[in-house]
């Protein structure tokens, strides 16, 4: 069985149509499933948990950010998402600011960090993350 050029063309176009439609439907189905069943998008999660924190911050104040996961790629993601949610407040990668957002998975490290930096709790953001302020001397 041999094909001439117009036949090849028709077959290729038919395959492209099928491939395009099925590919889009398959991906859209996956996205819809994720939307209904999986947990929320990470940026939405940060927006929701940091929204109330933003209201507590005085205008123009700088915020420090730290966590105990500095070696994994998650640190940058968490820092940028915190900055994105709290903008126009500046969130800096250090512990020197008057307000600090810290996220610790290890409770012992969290206690030590608060003690070392003379911090007091302003608000618990979730089970790991909290907003602190520096104790006045």
């Amino acid at each position, binding site marked *: 069985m041999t094909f*001439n*050029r*117009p036949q*090849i*063309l*028709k077959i*290729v*176009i*038919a*395959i*492209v*149509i099928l*491939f*395009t*439609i099925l*590919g*889009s*439907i398959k*991906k*859209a189905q996956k*996205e*819809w499933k*994720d*939307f209904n069943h999986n947990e929320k*998008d990470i*940026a*939405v999660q940060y*927006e929701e948990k940091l929204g109330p924190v933003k209201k507590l911050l005085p205008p*123009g104040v*700088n915020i420090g*950010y730290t966590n105990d996961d500095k070696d994994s790629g998650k640190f940058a*993601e968490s*820092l*940028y*998402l*915190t*900055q*994105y949610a709290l*903008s*126009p407040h*500046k*969130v*800096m*990668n250090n512990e020197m600011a008057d307000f600090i957002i810290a996220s610790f998975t290890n409770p012992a490290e969290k206690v030590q960090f608060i003690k070392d930096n003379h911090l007091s709790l302003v608000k618990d953001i979730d089970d790991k993350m909290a907003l602190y302020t520096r104790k006045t001397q």
Partner: protein
Amino acid sequence: MLILSLILPITFAFLLIHLLWASPQIINSQTAIKLFLSVGLGLGISSLSYWVFLNLSGSFNSFSIILEAAVFMVLILVCAVIQLKRKPLCNINEPFQKNEKESQDILTWHKIPFLTIGFWTAILCTVVLFVTRTLNNPHGSWDAWAIWNMRARFLYRSQEHWITAFSSMHGCTHTDYPLLIPAAISRIWGYIGSDTLHAPMIVAFLFTFSTVGLIVSAMILIKNRNHGYVTGLILLSLTFFTIHGAGQVADVPFGFFVLSTMVLFFLKDKLPEKSAVFCFLAGMMAGLSAWTKNEGLLFIIIILFSHFIVTVFKQGRASYFKEIRPLFLGLSPVILIIAHFKMNLDISNDLVSKRSAESLVKLLFDPERYLIVGKSYLYYLNKKFLAIIITFPLMLIALKLSGDKNIKVSSTISALAILLLLFGYFMIYIITPHDLAWHVKTSLSRLYLQVMPSVVFVFFMLLNSIGRQPDYGSRK
């Protein structure tokens, strides 16, 4: 206010293109291509105007918004009056009109036009994919919230302290990145009065589907309807393109401006009487690519070089000088604003700043880096663009290369520019100060995405038209 913020610059851009192109009627076969070009041009002009107002008045406040809207309205009025007062034009667009006659549905079954139905079904499915992806990630992907939407938020929320958006002291990355997307979004928020997520979503939607619309309408105009639909289908088959479009990254708008520049070069070849107009618009689009991403600066150098080499060798120096003036005229206002942005703010680029010549030479002469980047180029091409690898050779067999002399110059300029752009990206990877594997992994597929609409467009421009029976009938 959302609609007003978009309709004013896009209407102005449409009337400007329509005036310059000088068609006899406002609605004709070129309306679609003018409309899709004007979406990108309008959003680009609006972001430039936002930057100008921000710098002149210190913030984009209510007064700036009223003044900007008034300026756009006056410009629209002026364009409309000139259009109305203009003498009736002779039809210079004749080369495009025969295409409609030769267009017939190539894929029919019992008189059902499958190609047309298939194309519009694919568009519908792509819109559904875009919407579901956007619902899932309303803030966009990593690059959107870490760079583009973050910068837009700083510009809008900081008000008169907008300069903090460019401070490298906080968790704000790539402060040197140009502002087309953040400024366009922040401007819309200024009009609405709140930083709703609808603005970045709509900007992303407009650029994604204007790219599809532009490629299809340009192909319909220059070749024919069948050719346009098939080209659009190939682009739509890359779900990666739609996913990134919905991800609100700047690579899709950048790809739009690269594609627009090339489309305008092809139109210049098809309508030589209007070459100055198309060169002017191509210059603007190339300039806007550099206002979208830093890669645009490389694209400008490459497109100017490719245009020089190909035009001088194929058409002579006189033709080159005739075209380069309007090209620079379109390019220069955007370049001036980019220069103002880069020189007046304390910003540095992570790829070029603080590098010694010695360290660059060391990287340049490391053969292992070439091997890693070369392998990655092939890996990501195969991984993300398999549909193109499969369909392109089959299309080439089925249609063969066209011998259309009218588009030889533009196709050579475009093909050379695409190759040089990919080569330029390759060399940037070689000298990157970042971890090479990480840099390639996080960016190469998006760089491919930037050139892919143009690759699809140029490839299909080079083929014989689909539906012209004598072309392939005689080769049976």
